[in-house]
């Protein structure tokens, strides 16, 4: 089985397991404030790391290229409270323009 299928099915199985377990355990199990706090912070850490790696690296090298223009547009768009699709597809357009011009 390819890495692509393993990733697709493995991620699916893991995500479903969490959803199903949540429906099956007593509410008190996860009521601890520490669990709640960490649960809110984990996505913040992982998503920020993903922005960094996806925008500023190429394999094992740190790079600044056309993607930075796109991501900068996205940040500006979210600051301006534009809707998600406008920000994300706008970022693609800006990045593509810089890529073609450079």
């Amino acid at each position, binding site marked *: 089985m390819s*890495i*692509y299928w*393993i*990733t*697709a099915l*493995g*991620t*699916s199985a*893991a*995500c*479903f397991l*969490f959803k*199903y*377990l*949540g*429906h*099956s355990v007593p*509410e008190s199990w*996860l009521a601890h*404030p*520490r*669990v709640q*706090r*960490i*649960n*809110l*912070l*984990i996505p*913040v*850490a*992982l*998503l*920020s*790391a*993903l*922005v*960094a*790696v*996806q925008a500023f*690296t190429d*394999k*094992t*090298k*740190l790079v600044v290229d056309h993607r930075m*223009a*796109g*991501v900068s*547009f*996205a940040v500006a768009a979210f600051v301006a409270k534009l*809707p*998600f*699709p406008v920000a*994300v*597809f706008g*970022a*693609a357009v800006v*990045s*593509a323009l810089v*890529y*073609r011009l450079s």
Partner: protein
Amino acid sequence: MSVKRDSLSLSFAVGVYGAAFGAASVAAHFSVLQTCAISLLTFSGASQFAAVGVVGAGGGAFSAIATGALLGTRNGLYAVRMAPLLKVRGAKRIVAAQITIDESTGVALAQNNEKDSRTGFWWTGFGVFIFWNIFTLIGAVSAGLLKDPAAYGLDALVPAAFVGLVWPRLKGKRSYYLAALAFICALSLVPFVPAGVPIISTALLAILMGWRA
């Protein structure tokens, strides 16, 4: 009645992002079939973007699955909130579990009574499921027609989507510090450890920061 209308309009708006996932997944060299399978079976936006993002950056399956899974833990906590409202068993519980996501839980918890909460949960859950999967297919097929993804900005689409996913979660000083720290740590690790590890290791920062109140 307005619960159903709100649920469906939100479902459509969210479902459209599925096109971004479809395009991002194909740009990370997943096939159209694999991409659609992820949207049908994983059905959790951030986890999906993360898993294909890690593989696209050269990471292994284990890092990809672990990152996607960690982003999926919050659905489990949503499920804990929803279970006493839905009171479902057997096959219905399996269906309810699969559609327990940010949006279905959010709409359900925004209602004033239990009946509207249940309606909001099911309509939003099924609504997002349908539109998300349709738009994933559209995005994947469209992206597959392009020869050089960077010329169409697809390589910027993924980090931009992550900015959009993290944005609403930045509330309070602690989350800003953590975001900045995770950003810097991930970049510092990239030259020295296998791809995927820089991302998953930032979960430790979240645990350390969340340990004390």
